[in-house]
């Protein structure tokens, strides 16, 4: 147990006060409007707008595509992290910088660029179109946009843990006759599992709420390629504040659940590291 000790440094009251004040006016009070407004709607009204047929189709797309993209990113993100941590090769630093590009590139820019690539007459789409594969304006396009925005979350979550996985453990396993795949499955994967799950959860959460990079490539066809955040905007444009708020409430609750999951995962990770 650590004892609370009094700091000799000045400014506790002032900085804590300012932090809480600023946090309240910028984040907490504005966010509370969503819950107060949807709380005032009454349960049956709320349910009818939050779970209208069109809204449910939008959740299904947003959640489904985010899930698929996070799964894909888990595989390839792990691969990229592995290569960055374990191998030294020319251009490695450049590759590492490339991983952060989706963080740095504005989402609207990514959105129009992805559309230019994957549209039926685009750079890549023109080769897929004759094969009957449509990417842009389908759920597949939404997934590709979410792969783009989610990748750094997985790589940056897994990388530091992979660095810590001792090679001696792998060597011990190998000397006992374990094959490469067995070592990966029995030694490495369990060690990085919490970090990988954290990256997955972060990528998923980001994907569900993502807007800018998706709307251009999605085509926004109601019931088919309309994502949940776009539903909010559509409702707002019709001055249907209640409808927009109801959908926002569902999304916020999901975000909070994901945030909680990530925190629990990180606690799990810390406890494991202490062992």
């Amino acid at each position, binding site marked *: 147990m650590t004892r609370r000790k009094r*700091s000799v440094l000045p400014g506790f009251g002032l900085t804590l006060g300012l932090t809480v004040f*600023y946090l309240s006016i910028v984040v907490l009070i504005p966010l509370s409007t*969503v819950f107060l407004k949807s709380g005032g709607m009454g349960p049956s009204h709320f349910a009818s707008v939050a779970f209208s047929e069109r809204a449910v189709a939008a959740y299904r797309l947003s959640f489904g595509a985010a899930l698929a993209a996070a799964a894909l990113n888990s595989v390839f993100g792990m691969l990229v992290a592995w290569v960055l941590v374990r191998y030294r090769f020319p251009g490695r630093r450049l590759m590492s910088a490339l991983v952060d590009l989706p963080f740095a590139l*504005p*989402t*609207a820019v990514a959105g129009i660029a992805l559309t230019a690539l994957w549209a039926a007459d685009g750079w890549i789409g023109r080769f897929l179109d004759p094969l009957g594969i449509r990417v842009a304006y389908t759920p597949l396009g939404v997934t590709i946009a979410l792969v783009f925005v989610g990748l750094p979350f997985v790589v940056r979550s897994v990388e530091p843990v992979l660095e810590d996985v001792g090679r001696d453990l792998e060597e011990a396993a190998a000397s006992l006759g374990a094959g490469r795949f067995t070592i990966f499955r029995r030694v490495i994967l369990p060690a990085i599992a919490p970090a990988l799950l954290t990256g997955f959860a972060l990528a998923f959460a980001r994907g569900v709420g993502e807007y*800018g990079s998706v709307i251009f490539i999605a085509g926004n066809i109601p019931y088919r390629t309309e994502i949940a955040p776009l539903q909010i905007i559509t409702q707002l444009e019709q001055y249907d504040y209640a409808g927009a708020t109801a959908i926002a409430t569902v999304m916020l609750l999901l975000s909070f659940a994901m945030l909680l999951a990530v925190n629990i995962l990180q606690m799990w990770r810390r406890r494991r590291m202490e062992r």
Partner: protein
Amino acid sequence: MARRLLIAAALAFLGLFVLLPFIAVFVEAFRQGVPAFLDALAEPDAMAAMRLTLLVAAISVPANIVFGIVAAWCITKFEFRGKGLLITLIDLPFSVSPVVAGLIYVLLFGINGWFGPWLRANGVEIIFAVPGIVLATIFVTFPFVARELIPLMAEQGRDDEEAAVSLGASGLQTFWHVTLPNIRWGLLYGVLLCNARAMGEFGAVSVVSGHIRGLTNTMPLHVEILYTEYNFVGAFAVASLLAVLALVTLAVKTLLEWRYGDQIQGMGH
């Protein structure tokens, strides 16, 4: 053998999903040559969008720098109950969809919002005007500086500051002469990421802006308008400026990690 294969697979994945879109921005921007590119940028609405983007970043980034430093000082230099909760709440904007971030300000300040009638009676415009854009941007960039500084300052402890104070330095002197030099690279790192997001934010700003050309269109919003009007060269020309911003951000970030990796500790993640 396996090594080469894995590197090649990683490169192929990154090339296809990350690098290629980035390259496409520039190729599409110059599709009709340099003059068309320059014309698109010199257009008055594009210039107005650039000015607005710079203005919004110039207000929201410093606001979050001050907050980030204050919050990090409070969290890392003192022990108090509820610290964990406070850190979680500071990170909250990262897990909120940008569109929801815009919506909450509409619910507060829009015509039918809590303060809507009062604002209208007093002739104050927030939604569909610059203040709303600034607020939404502050919200989405809120955690960047703080979450960069908190692990860094926690790692550095408070011995240096305590020594300074015991030698008679005031709080502000201690911060200015002791803490700030210790955290400068980490701070710069946080500011860099905060600025990139502030200038590039789309979803949140899109909800509160009203898309009035030449008045409330930031650069990303202007990209959208041009694109939906099938002015692809114009859209990609403005987008290429934002892509250059991303490139500069990444270059400085990589440089900072390389030169001062031990002094910006904590991020990268």
